């Protein structure tokens, strides 16, 4: 079993998050990588390990070439999706490489071009079951899948429109304080209701943004991190949860369609970190949709199961609340570079220099990553 406080995130960087950008994935990954390496006080020649993401479409050879790297000693590719890959599994692989002595400084780059033809729904259309059975009845696309989860959740636990709206309103309140966020205009219930309905009960405001952008981070051994430019932000806990339902049947045939493997990942992460949810100062939660963010908030133990709507409506996740959540606006208001911008924000909050949106005395932050049939919980600490 891997142990906490052995690795640190020593550098973070990103590109601007744009509704429609001019650059492709490779160029955005390169820019974000160079920014992260510089933030770590390193040169590209000092990067000797790489964790690629199979959905980025570019391997470590291309990235190493693009950043002008030195000798590569380790590379691996995440085999999970979304936030699980970028904010969970990539760290697990990096820790294994560093602790085995295979690499000193591991780069984790990712970028997404949501506006590329085929968009973010293209991989669903390639699933035979979806193309064969679901698409002909119009059941297609993440907002539609997650809308059915929201209706089922509301059936089982209750959720008013006001409670649902309080989730994107919470994240928007943080985005207002975040200069790099894509959506910074304030959102109240009235403006929420003006957002176009996509698939009941989900409005556009209940969905993550369309973003062209990239992010990257550098992972180093904890001993190395102590001599690097920033306060040490270490990985204290890390848990991955998986179920064996393939993506093609995931949204219809699982016994409970919104029962992501988040309780498993959270339990593992808290055990590794030796802490409880009450010890956290803040959290970053993968907010592809209001319903998925809501359920993960419960799975992380930030509130009781079924009480997420009341938790958000009471303002607990907002600036000044007892458990600040998605403090740069998350994926719904900050930008959608799956999992990556949430992890970067966690690191920055723990460094403690985020101005108006800085959470006071931030020492411990959970980052939840969702990938459909997989989930990660990462607990970062300022050492």
């Amino acid at each position, binding site marked *: 079993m891997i142990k906490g406080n052995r690795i640190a995130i020593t550098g973070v960087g990103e590109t601007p998050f744009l509704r429609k950008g001019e650059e492709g994935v490779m160029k955005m990954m390169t820019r974000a990588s160079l920014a992260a390496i510089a933030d770590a006080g390193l040169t590209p020649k000092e990067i000797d390990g790489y964790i690629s993401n199979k959905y980025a479409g570019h391997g470590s050879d291309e990235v190493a070439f693009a950043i002008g790297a030195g000798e590569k000693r380790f590379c691996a590719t995440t085999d999970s999706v979304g936030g699980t890959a970028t904010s969970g599994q990539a760290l697990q692989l990096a820790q294994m490489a560093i602790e085995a002595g295979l690499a000193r400084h591991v780069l984790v780059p990712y970028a997404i071009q949501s506006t590329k033809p085929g968009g973010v729904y293209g991989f669903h259309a390639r699933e035979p079951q979806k193309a064969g059975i679901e698409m002909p*009845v119009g059941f297609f696309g993440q907002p*539609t899948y997650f809308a059915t989860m929201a209706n089922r959740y509301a059936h089982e636990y209750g959720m008013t429109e006001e409670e649902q709206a309080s989730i994107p309103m919470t994240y928007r309140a943080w985005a207002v304080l975040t200069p790099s966020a894509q959506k910074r205009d304030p959102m109240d219930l009235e403006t929420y209701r003006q957002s176009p309905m996509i698939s009941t009960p989900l409005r556009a405001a209940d969905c993550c943004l369309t973003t062209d952008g990239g992010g990257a981070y550098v992972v180093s051994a904890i001993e190395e991190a102590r001599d690097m430019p920033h306060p040490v932000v270490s990985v204290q806990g890390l848990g991955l949860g998986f179920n064996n339902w393939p993506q093609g049947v995931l949204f219809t045939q699982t016994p409970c369609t919104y029962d992501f493997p988040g309780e498993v990942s959270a339990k593992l992460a808290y055990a590794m970190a030796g802490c409880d949810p009450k010890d956290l100062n803040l959290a970053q939660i993968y907010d592809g949709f209001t319903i998925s963010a809501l359920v993960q908030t419960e799975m992380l133990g930030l509130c009781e199961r079924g009480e997420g709507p009341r938790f958000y409506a009471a303002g607990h996740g907002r600036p000044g609340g007892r458990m600040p959540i998605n403090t740069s606006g998350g994926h719904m208001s900050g930008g959608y570079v799956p999992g990556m911008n949430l992890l970067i924000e966690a690191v920055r909050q723990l460094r403690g220099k985020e101005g108006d949106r800085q959470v006071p005395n931030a020492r411990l932050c959970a980052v939840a990553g969702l990938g459909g049939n997989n989930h990660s919980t990462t607990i970062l600490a300022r050492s």
Partner: protein
Amino acid sequence: MGIPIYPPKIEDPLFQGYYDGLEAGELRITADAETGEWIWYPPEVIPGKPDAVLEWRKVSQEGTAYTFTTVIRSLLPGDHKAEVPFTVVLFEPDDAPGVRVPGLLVDADDVEPRCGMRLRFQPVQAGDHKIAGFASLD
């Protein structure tokens, strides 16, 4: 309410029996031919039994809605603006617990969809093919 028009890939033999059933006015799903266990959607390999064979079996035409959504903006590839809104339900046949078949809620103009609503299978013509449809019994 509209009807989504998106041709199924019935050339895929995995789904031929499903569409044959719709044409015949029956809801058919797949089961392990040896044990009768429902295996749905039809996978390329029955879990743990690569030599096992799937067969199509008729299921109850009545059941309940596990969940639903009314699609206002269709995300299907292409232009489908004229086909919305429509309501999709996940139908659980009475005699196949745990199995869910996605389909269109038909005759839905005055129906308030809800989880647990009682439904009856009623296939719908969608362009030049039939799709699964379900009418409210409530």
